């Protein structure tokens, strides 16, 4: 990573600080939007894995999506009696069958999974279920690979056929279209860069300034966004709850609105009291 100071030498520290704060705020909003949108895309993805379980007569089906900011594949939706344990499971993109299918873009199926004791154990520790057979296909289009769809254990057969791989590919295409349509993969850094690019495009380039500025902007954006996806941030569980609430029915929504009103009023009173205490010694 370039030293943020290098390309930004010509700017004042105050500008850098303000720009970094603004970028972090933009990045945070975009990340919140991404997670909220994921909520709506997830409904489509969930219906796809449910359909896959029904069509294949499989024990489980799930979709893992790639998160570029953290370089992990995360299982977002699952269906089937034995599928739920996988939700939230994270795997590096170069590990295991799902990682291979993601990085190579190559669909494949394996059977006799249990004959590899290490495979079975690591899988079972994480998901409480050891499959006999797996088919995994990439969620891919001409713009890149978004994740992987996997289906576990066809009840009627010991393994998945070529036709099964192709059918799973049809589901994967539907999922890819759904995700693209909801722009769930919107990359915050790309968004910010393109905005800054558009803003600075009109400026007259000084001697060697264009590249230096580009490098400075890159470094600044990278530094500002470094904490945006921090999984430990307590904001994310809240955002995900809100995303989940979008699926609530009208009556539930009314009740939730009333509950939230109470909470907001309480929070405001709490803030008032704290502010009052802070003011007291000076006043």
């Amino acid at each position, binding site marked *: 990573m370039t030293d943020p100071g290098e390309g930004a030498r010509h700017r004042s520290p105050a500008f850098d600080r303000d720009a970094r704060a603004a970028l972090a705020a933009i990045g945070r909003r975009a990340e919140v939007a991404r997670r909220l949108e994921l909520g709506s895309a997830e409904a489509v993805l969930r219906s796809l894995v449910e359909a896959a379980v029904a069509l294949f007569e499989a024990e489980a089906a799930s979709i893992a999506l790639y998160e570029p900011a953290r*370089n992990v594949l995360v299982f977002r939706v699952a269906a089937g009696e034995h599928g739920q344990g996988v939700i939230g499971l994270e795997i*590096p993109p170069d590990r295991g069958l799902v990682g*291979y299918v993601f990085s190579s873009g190559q*669909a494949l199926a*394996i*059977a*006799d999974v249990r004959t590899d004791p290490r*495979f079975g154990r690591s899988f079972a520790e994480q998901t409480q279920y050891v499959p006999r057979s797996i088919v995994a296909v990439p969620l891919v289009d001409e713009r890149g690979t978004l994740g992987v769809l996997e289906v576990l254990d066809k009840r009627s057969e010991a393994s998945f056929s070529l036709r099964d791989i192709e059918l799973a590919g049809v589901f994967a*295409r539907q999922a890819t279209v759904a995700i693209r349509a909801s722009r769930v993969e919107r990359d915050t850094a790309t968004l910010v860069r393109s905005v800054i690019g558009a803003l600075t495009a009109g400026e007259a380039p000084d001697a060697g300034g264009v590249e230096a500025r580009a490098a400075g902007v890159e470094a600044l954006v990278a530094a500002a966004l470094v904490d945006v996806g921090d999984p430990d941030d307590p904001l994310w569980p809240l955002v995900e709850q809100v995303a989940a609430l979008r699926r609530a029915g009208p009556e539930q929504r009314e009740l939730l609105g009333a509950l939230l009103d109470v909470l907001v009023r309480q929070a405001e009173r709490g803030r008032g009291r704290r502010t009052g205490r802070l003011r007291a010694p000076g006043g």
Partner: protein
Amino acid sequence: MTDPLLPAWSEPFVGARRDALRHLPPFGALDRAWAIGGSDGSGITVAIIDSGVEREHPAVGGKLVRSVKVELAADPEDDPVVLDDDDGLDVVGHGTACAGIIHAIAPGADLVSVRVLGPDNRGKGIVFAAGLDWAIEQGARVMNLSLSSKSDALFGLFHDLADRAYFANALLVCAANNVPGNSYPSLFASVISVAAHDLEDPAAWFYNPSPPVEFGAHGVDVSVAWRGGSRMTATGNSFAAPHIAGYAALIRAKHPDATPFEVKAILAATATPPPA
């Protein structure tokens, strides 16, 4: 599949559709005894561009003579770097599966592992291209590629590499990718593109006179080597390609003057005839 939008590359090699593959080479059928009889692939180096190869796996038979890994350079302006990968590991199992299939057919061939799938997901197309470039430079005569790139931005680069391989007398054997859209270099004319047939016979391969996917090989319920010295049953075009790579190594060992297009012609002329 009957969906015309779906490039079901395996379709011509499966079930009753196989009967339509009847094709008479203009020079007549060649004898497999002439093409590969007595050959074990000795003197030929096969590069496996994949997830790595487990050196100690019994299925590899101690024939892995070199392992390298390709990584992005620290400065994105620089070319990716090729480093020796002395651990001889395969974190997935897939490259070892391909190596085991090739070794079972051509036990005399030397194997070189070029690991292009690493933890860094950025620029993986560039890394893949750099691995292919390195293998061409090293003089590998056969290369097994069970992966491809869909990036239109890399069309030119892969086209150039496919041409360079062809002119350098190196044969690229690529697994067809059953997803819609472009796939490089598996759909270029100078490579051998392979899909799976559904017979349980590793010695059966079919020639399809309708490109782009010209060959069908064993790819359904294949017993393959996997990581940690284990074995697994696997299905996919990924496992069909190394069968053809293995037979290509046998042909190249027995007929060292045969060029890539001649090897392709010999594979076509010795293909399993469809049922009469």
